[in-house]
């Protein structure tokens, strides 16, 4: 291989794209040719410069969580009751039930469209936290360790309480991603049941915890306290979960 033949193949050589025969020919040429050797060195140098770790942009954890949450929401669609199929049921129902049904429908229809999405995301986050060994960023039963952990990680101070005395020990916290923002997640335990509490700043007035919905066997409780939007989710029964949230909201 002479220099004329070697030059157009230098990049392919550096990229490991030459077949064996031509690679051997190239390795025969290089020691005899300072110009090609220099070009190879420069290409390798450039390659090293481009492969510096700090130039690589791995996916942020929040993006990963958000993608998973959306996929989970897609994979487990809540069947939306078709208006007309509900309507056809009406004649078969008693008057009282019709009233209930109408009220339920009104509530469902009046809910902001983001509600469905949000509760689906909460369920997904909860399920992921159960699968991924609780996915705790800070493991501690001490509220004085968990609370400061959020300093500088979120732009608000989530209320952190240990409710061990009430039978709901704190086990840790993590950052999560809900509703297009980073939120604080606190994890509590009741016997074998895991409770996730999600908190982020909101603009609503204080409201008492109430059962918002049941999705995929999980109870979701929603309330507002001290400028925070709060959600608790668990497979724990609604009564005890409400008891927990009332203790938390105190």
């Amino acid at each position, binding site marked *: 291989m002479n*220099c004329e033949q070697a*030059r*157009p193949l*230098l*990049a*392919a050589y550096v*990229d490991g*794209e030459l077949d064996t025969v031509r690679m051997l020919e190239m390795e025969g040429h290089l020691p005899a040719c300072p*110009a*090609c050797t*220099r*070009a190879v*060195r*420069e*290409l390798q*140098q*450039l*390659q*090293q*410069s*481009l*492969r*510096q770790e*700090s*130039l*690589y*942009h*791995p*996916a*942020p954890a929040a*993006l*990963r969580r*958000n*993608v*998973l949450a*959306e*996929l*989970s929401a*897609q*994979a*487990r*669609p809540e069947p939306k009751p078709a208006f007309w199929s509900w309507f056809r049921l009406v004649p078969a129902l008693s008057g009282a039930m019709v009233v209930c049904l109408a009220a339920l429908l009104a509530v469902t229809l009046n809910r902001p469209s983001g509600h469905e999405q949000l509760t689906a995301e909460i369920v997904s986050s909860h399920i992921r936290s159960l699968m991924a060994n609780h996915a705790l960023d800070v493991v501690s039963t001490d509220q004085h360790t968990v609370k400061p952990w959020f300093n500088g990680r979120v732009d608000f101070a989530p209320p952190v309480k240990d409710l061990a005395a009430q039978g709901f020990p704190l086990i840790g916290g993590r950052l999560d991603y809900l509703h297009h923002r980073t939120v604080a997640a606190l994890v509590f335990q009741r016997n074998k049941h895991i409770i996730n509490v999600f908190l982020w700043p909101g603009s609503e007035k204080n409201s008492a915890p109430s059962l918002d919905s049941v999705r995929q066997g999980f109870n979701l409780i929603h309330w507002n306290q001290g400028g925070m939007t709060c959600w608790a989710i668990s497979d724990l029964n609604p009564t005890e979960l409400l008891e927990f949230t009332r203790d938390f909201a105190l």
Partner: protein
Amino acid sequence: MEARERLPAFEQTVLPHLDAAHNLARWLAGNDQDAQDVVQEACLRAFKFFGGFRGDNPRAWLLAIVRNTFYTWLRQNRPAIPTVELDDAALEVADPAAAGEALQTRQADAETVRRAIAALPVEFREIIVLREMEAMSYKDIAILADLPIGTVMSRLARARKLLQKQLAREYQTGGPS
């Protein structure tokens, strides 16, 4: 296959390449928010089409979707920034040995390299990311970007030359020393 059944397989096969997806989107879009929007949208598309995925290179498959999503996004959101129409045939023949400039022979610092890559036209940038950061083969890049292999090679050569010139210039004009 139901979406519910597809998810675990998708998580195992495709999501391990989320870093590569984000890296490509981040270099193409140039900022965090747009990159995340593109990746999010690309993942949803990928999930939708995952049932039809039969290949043995899920990373290239995902990156192809990220790339398509990015260009769709670019047309919809940044119509004022047209992509450069490249006349690949007109590109000079790659001949790095003929470069007369004093090319630097040591590793350039990350910030300088970052600026040099960011200054490349997007069609060159993507080839650099795919080849140098993801170490993809010419063939995989050709399939992914739907280009002939010859075009991949000429764009890569051109992109490298531009980078080398840019870095040499930075280091000569009192850039980082």
